[in-house]
């Protein structure tokens, strides 16, 4: 049981990192970024490339991943979504555009990094064993870094000017526009930030879960589960959703046939959303 809790906590923290960027972009722009998984994968590949191929350290890897993804995010926002949001014929269009960009990014990754699946050694090797619970150093490290990243992000949103501006936009675009918040600039920032978070997640988790060019969709789906579970567009919601998913997985794998775990998770999600569409702490209808 202790092991299950630890596993759940570790997975939960990893997932939180996966979900944050998605929920941020949704909160700021109302765009459900289908390309989130592909951004995650790109982050993983950049990390792999810098660390294994170029032989530079983890830090360089993280830096490279973040920079790459921020740039990708800015490009997507500037050339795709800003345009689409202005021209949007109906609410659907941005979601579908996002689906298109996902396919684009996936193909680009395949062309750029090839078909091979890539993984990395753990950042720290070795295993701790406390009270009969195995805690591999590598996972512990990932857990801590993820924790730091999440906390840093929350602090940024709470206590910095841009953070507050982003929250204001998430609350109410019109009002914040009236208060003189430069919506376009901050939307770009928000999108870049969301992409960057996906990059960090990819760069961090590639040492636990290998990446391949086609992994994106399944990552996105997972991120969707967490975000909807917690409440779309609410940061705390995404984190809660992530931990719920983490523990649900850990429990499922420990006590029921693994193959039905996800079947149950999806069924439960559907049921839950029917009863409570806004998720655990989301506002109704986003």
């Amino acid at each position, binding site marked *: 049981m202790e092991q299950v809790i630890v596993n759940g906590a570790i997975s939960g923290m990893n997932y939180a990192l996966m979900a944050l960027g998605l929920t941020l972009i949704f909160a700021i722009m109302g765009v459900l970024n289908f390309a989130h998984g592909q951004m995650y994968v790109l982050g993983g590949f950049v990390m792999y490339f810098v660390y294994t191929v170029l032989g530079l350290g983890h830090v360089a890897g993280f830096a490279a991943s973040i920079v790459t993804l921020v740039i990708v995010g800015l490009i997507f926002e500037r050339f795709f979504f800003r345009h689409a949001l202005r021209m949007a014929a109906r609410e659907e269009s941005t979601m579908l555009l996002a689906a298109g960009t996902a396919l*684009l990014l996936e193909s680009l990754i395949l062309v750029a990094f090839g078909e091979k699946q890539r993984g990395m050694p753990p950042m720290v090797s070795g295993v701790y064993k406390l009270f009969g619970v195995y805690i591999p150093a590598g996972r512990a490290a990932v857990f801590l870094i993820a924790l730091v990243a999440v906390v840093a992000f929350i602090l940024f949103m709470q206590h910095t000017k841009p953070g507050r501006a982003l929250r204001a936009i998430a609350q109410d675009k019109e009002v914040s526009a009236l208060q003189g918040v430069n919506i376009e600039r901050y939307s770009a920032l928000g999108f870049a930030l969301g992409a960057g978070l996906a990059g960090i997640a990819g760069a961090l988790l590639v040492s636990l879960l290998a990446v391949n060019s086609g992994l994106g969709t399944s990552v996105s789906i997972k991120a969707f589960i967490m975000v909807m579970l917690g409440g779309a567009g609410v940061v705390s919601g995404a984190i809660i959703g992530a931990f719920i998913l983490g523990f649900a997985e850990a429990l499922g794998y420990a006590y029921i046939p693994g193959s039905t775990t996800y079947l149950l998770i999806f069924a439960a999600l559907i049921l839950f959303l029917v009863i409570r569409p806004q998720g655990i702490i989301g506002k109704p209808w986003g």
Partner: protein
Amino acid sequence: MSRGLLRPLAGAGLALLALVYLVLLPVYFSHSPYILRVVSIASVLSVISLGVWLTFAIGRINIGQAAFALIGGYATAILSTRFGLSYWLCLPLSGILAALVGTVLGFGILRLRGVYFAMITLSLTEAVRLAFLNGGEFTGGASGIPIIPLPGELSLFGVVLMPSFQTVNTHLAFYYLAAALLIVTLAVVWRIGTSRLGWIFRSLQQNEDLATSIGIDIARYRVMAYAICCFFGGIGGSYFAVSQQSIYPNVFGVPDSIFFILYCFLGGLAYVAGPVVGTFILFIGFQILHPLQEYQQLIYAVLMIAIMLWLPNGLLSLRWHTRADRAELARLEGREARS
């Protein structure tokens, strides 16, 4: 939206199109199965997309259609292999079964809108796939149901309505089956679009509260729309199951669901013919891009995004414009002006 269909294909155009689609193309290519196959597949994918278009019409983004295609496929597979039912029974039954499942689920999930409905249907796609994957003996689990017989002879009171597919040019037979399905579906959806039902659906899309206040039973009508959508999904799945003579849990997944909405969207949500145009252009487009080899998928994605950005109202907004059309376009332009 209904007005979108007939005008562009009006009169002579429509006749010509029908002539090409039903006579010239199949006859000329009767011995190049590849062409026939590509067009057949596009046709049946259009049938499935037309269902999705109906859920767009009531203002829902439906990423769950693959689930119902899968249900239809398995229904056909199980009914024909385990119970030896004739395909000509399996086909409608598959659709009806999918529609029933859709109806039951619909009452629950259609209360959701926007991204919430989109996500719940996306989860549905995964859930159904996993259900079949772990269905054990009944669904054949991971190894699916590998041997489904070709459609046999269909005769009524000794009159042969449909020859056994083994005895005829199978490709042509499947082509005409696909064509028939598409034409019937298109006719049905077009009728819905132009009839009062269409207006009721549109009223749901635009304001459910108001619709209620003027006495429209919104729950009933949106479930109706969704059930029809699922029916077409099941029909399509049934066709593919029998034309591939096999069904496996992952022949319809989330990517397919997403592609169905893309087909509708790129064709033009304002036009009944939108899903059909979108499906044909996109599916055949991918085939045409084959010489690009490893860049095929990449260029494909680029083109798709280009269309979205340059033709936000879909490919059909690009056609030759009658006066009425310009009015409708102006209307769409105006609609864009809003945001």
